[in-house]
């Protein structure tokens, strides 16, 4: 497993990632070693694609900006204007953008430490803040990472020689999708662990996981989690579809 040990930092976007790299390398934001940072930036994108995560187009736009700056840095600086003014350092725009983003990032973190109503201080009566909203938010923003983590967890617990090999089953993602849908029909919902631990061998675990990701992508099912490290539950994607269909 150590071959692809990945430490996942969840970044809010390309600027967040760049800031992280700049701080990690302890370099001056006004004098970014563009070759080094660009290389590390691309390494991070590689890691993200190893996980088959969709790399948002924003990351690719930034990648091309970095390459563009890098190429401009290779050109000799020449005096352009008649008054002898030199061209601005091609990195300045990026530095300004990063600083502005960092300011708001800090503001966001600081705002999070303020006493927040319904989190730190409470008024009388029930919370008028609807419950499903934050749940959906978790699903949208964290689940893929959490699922990958949970998947690795299950895989990690497989020991070679757990059981005998008889006939190699021919597996397909389509079959696994069918099975998941049947399970869902029967039980209404199930936990991620239940699903994968019923699979008898490693290949099956992988196919089941792929089938699950496919179903999530197609929005046929949704993965819910009450909070970090809590049980992951799989439910039908459209919550009212079941009840309408039957009654």
């Amino acid at each position: 497993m150590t071959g692809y040990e990945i430490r996942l930092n969840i970044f809010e976007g390309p600027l967040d990632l760049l800031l992280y790299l700049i701080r990690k390398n302890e370099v001056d934001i006004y004098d970014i070693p563009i070759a080094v940072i660009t290389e590390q930036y691309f390494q991070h994108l590689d890691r993200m694609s190893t996980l088959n995560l969709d790399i948002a187009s924003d990351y690719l736009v930034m990648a091309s900006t970095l390459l563009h700056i890098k190429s401009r840095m290779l050109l000799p600086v020449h005096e352009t204007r008649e008054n002898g003014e030199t061209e601005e350092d091609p990195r300045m725009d990026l530095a300004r953008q990063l600083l502005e983003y960092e300011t708001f990032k800090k503001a966001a973190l600081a705002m999070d430490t303020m006493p927040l109503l319904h989190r730190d201080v409470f008024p009388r009566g029930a919370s008028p803040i609807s419950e499903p909203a934050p749940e959906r938010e978790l699903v949208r923003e964290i689940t893929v990472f959490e699922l990958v983590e949970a998947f690795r967890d299950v895989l990690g617990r497989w020991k070679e020689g757990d059981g005998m090999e008889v006939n190699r089953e021919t597996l397909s993602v389509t079959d696994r999708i069918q099975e998941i849908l049947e399970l869902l029909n029967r039980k209404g919902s199930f936990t991620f662990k239940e699903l994968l631990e019923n699979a008898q061998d490693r290949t099956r675990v992988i196919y089941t996981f792929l089938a699950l990701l496919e179903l999530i992508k197609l929005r046929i099912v949704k993965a819910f989690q009450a909070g970090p490290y809590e049980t992951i539950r799989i439910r039908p994607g459209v919550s009212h579809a079941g009840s309408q269909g039957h009654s």
Partner: protein
Amino acid sequence: MQDLKAILEALIFVSDTPVPFQRLRGLLPEWDEGIIRESLKSLVEDYRSREGGLYVAEVSGGYQIRSRESVREWVRRFRKERPFTLSRAALETLAIIAYRQPVVKAEIDVIRGVDSSGTLRNLLEKNLVRVAGRKDIPGKPIIYATTARFLELFHLRDLSELPTLRDWKDMTAP
């Protein structure tokens, strides 16, 4: 004088939302505005010095009795619901809107370097952000601003109570 303070306390207590000063004043024509203000101040001070589980918050232009942060753990146990949280994306977007308002989505996207449509929709749903009109430039993009609900949630009397951006800037990176 003592009577007035008791009345004010009861009015603030029975309200679900922060009670604006003007509302209190309208309900209490028997008293001078100055005396009402003084009594409110004294009421806030009473709660502060008592150091009990409650305090009177002055938020969003009104007064509200709330449980103190120091007892939140037990209040959460009682409430059983998951405490309200905002994602980092939501906080970043909210910070940009709070400081730059009125602001269009394109400006938010440029600062964050990512598309903020989903986050913005979420903030609108939670009533932390509102549509404040349309900007008079080609395409007439929607202008966003924060709501009174935002002030209420973040414990602010008004927007001027937000620390300046410079204050945040000077903070050391976490």
